[in-house]
């Protein structure tokens, strides 16, 4: 069992565990913390796949940005009320069933196609670093999507401000 596998199972296990706990915790703050754990584990998996830039981006954006936002909101909305209520919807059992069946289907599809992607074909390690590569591709082939994404962010910013603003 090689080191890669150790790290993979370590991170993967943490990720799944964090995900499950996220979904099951009663207290949103706890779920947020576990979600952060899961995200960090995912970042680790990215690092495992030599995607350093994405690793950093994942931590900065997801953990440092989005999750802070989440926790903020959790603190703004008074959660004590919600804590004393039933946490799961009426449709929980059927929903659970459906989700599991869906997962089983996809798993079946993957299992039948597993021969397709065993090990990734060995490639020469790219001479230039991951960041430079991403930068080049991003600003050459994906210029337009990049701009559109920035516009999307701007719109989301304005919209969020407008909605969260007190109507005075």
């Amino acid at each position, binding site marked *: *069992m*090689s*080191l890669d596998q*150790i790290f993979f199972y370590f991170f993967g296990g943490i990720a799944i565990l964090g995900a499950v706990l996220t979904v099951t915790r009663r*207290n949103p*703050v*706890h779920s947020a*913390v576990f979600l*952060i754990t899961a995200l960090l584990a995912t970042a680790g998996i990215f690092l495992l796949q030599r995607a*350093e*830039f994405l*690793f*950093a*981006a994942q*931590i*900065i954006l997801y*953990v*440092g*940005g989005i*999750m*802070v936002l989440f*926790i*903020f909101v959790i*603190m703004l909305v008074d959660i004590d009320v919600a804590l004393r209520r039933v946490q799961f919807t009426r449709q929980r059992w059927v929903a659970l069933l459906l989700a599991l069946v869906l997962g089983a289907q996809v798993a079946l599809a993957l299992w039948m196609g597993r021969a397709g992607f065993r090990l990734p074909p060995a490639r020469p390690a790219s001479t230039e*670093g*991951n*960041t430079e590569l991403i930068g080049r591709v991003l600003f050459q082939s994906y210029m337009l999507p990049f701009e559109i994404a920035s516009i999307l962010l701007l719109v989301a910013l304005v919209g969020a401000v407008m909605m969260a603003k007190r109507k005075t």
Partner: protein
Amino acid sequence: MIQDLIQFMLRHLWPLVFGVVIVAVLPLLAGYVVLMERKVMADMQARLGPMRVGPHGLLQPIADAVKLLMKEDITPDKADRWIFWLAPLISVTAAMAAYAAVPFGPVFQVADLNVGLLFITAVMSMGIFGIILGGWSSNSHYSLLGALRSSAQVISYETAVGFAIVSGLLLAGTLSMQKIVQAQAEQQVWFIFLAPVGFFLYLVGSIAETNRAPFDLPEAESELVAGYMTEYSGFRWAIYFLGEYAAMIMVSSIAVTLFLGGWMRPFPNVSWLGFLDFLPAVVTLGVAGYCFWRAPRQPVQIQKVVMALFGAGVLLVAGVLGWAASLPETMTERGGILGAFWFLLKVFSYIYGFMWVRFTFPRFRFDQLMRLGWHILIPLSIVNVVGIGTALVLAKQMHWPRWSAISLTTAVTLLIAAWLVHLELERTSPASGGAEA
């Protein structure tokens, strides 16, 4: 499997050692930074500061640490125990993990990541969770308010700081800390001279990010007792404290690496200044001599001894430095040891700047702080990045002389800064409507 692990360990022996060293030394360093701060404060207030514990209070930090360890560890009732326990760890872990990418010297570095600077900022940005969760979990209004304030402040200023860093990155052209330092060596100039506005922005932003005066609203004793740390006591509090000072050293080492030439000595490739390599040895030698000179003049016997021991230690360091300086250029130890000295020197001078600011300026009001961040620093930082980029384009594509391009864009940036400040004064002057909340 075990073999693999051992193989791994061996392959990464030095980084592991460095990591252990850092984790071990950092608390000590932080403690002595505290001592330094108290001394500086005392000096600025015409006092002596701690003198009792050890000669000139040299053992004060250790005493404090011991005291904190022995204090009772209170966990408030109704607190969310688990998170209350988790929060300080997060903050200190974030601060320490960032050190993995800091180059204390050409070799003295845990990992020269390809995305080093990004990694540092990323890990640093996680410190917020320590603050928010701590404030929230202790289930007290002071703490919660302090936490919210502090996180709001940190998030607001992170943007400006990020842009300031980008302005440095544009000049370096790489994210790896080592390469940044080398870039400054090759371009034969510290980036502070190429991006003065960026450095200034980073200075202000870093002060705010570490919640230090005059931006220490989250811990404003006069308003909320101790901010998010109100309910913490004993060792957890110590951990928070450690985290803060670690973060402080962290931001200053980023500044040193990015703007102040990193571990290189001044004018690294001016050969006739080579004697500067012996400066560390000489300085430490002087310190040691001072210690020996003061040793007999200590009031108590034990202090005499301690002083002498301290002098001996410094003497040892001086010896090491001198030996390193005498080594031939090619050997890595030389650069490593000397580099560590220069790096720490620069870091401490930067921190001294922090303290100076702290003891000089009065505290902001929170709306003023936010307005400063959003109305002046962030736009200015964006303008600054654009300016630097323009200058680089002019220099590379148009083949302007770099200095003229840089100074031109800097002048423009400063003009815009003046304009922004003017606008701000207009908006907040009581004549025109006064300050909005």
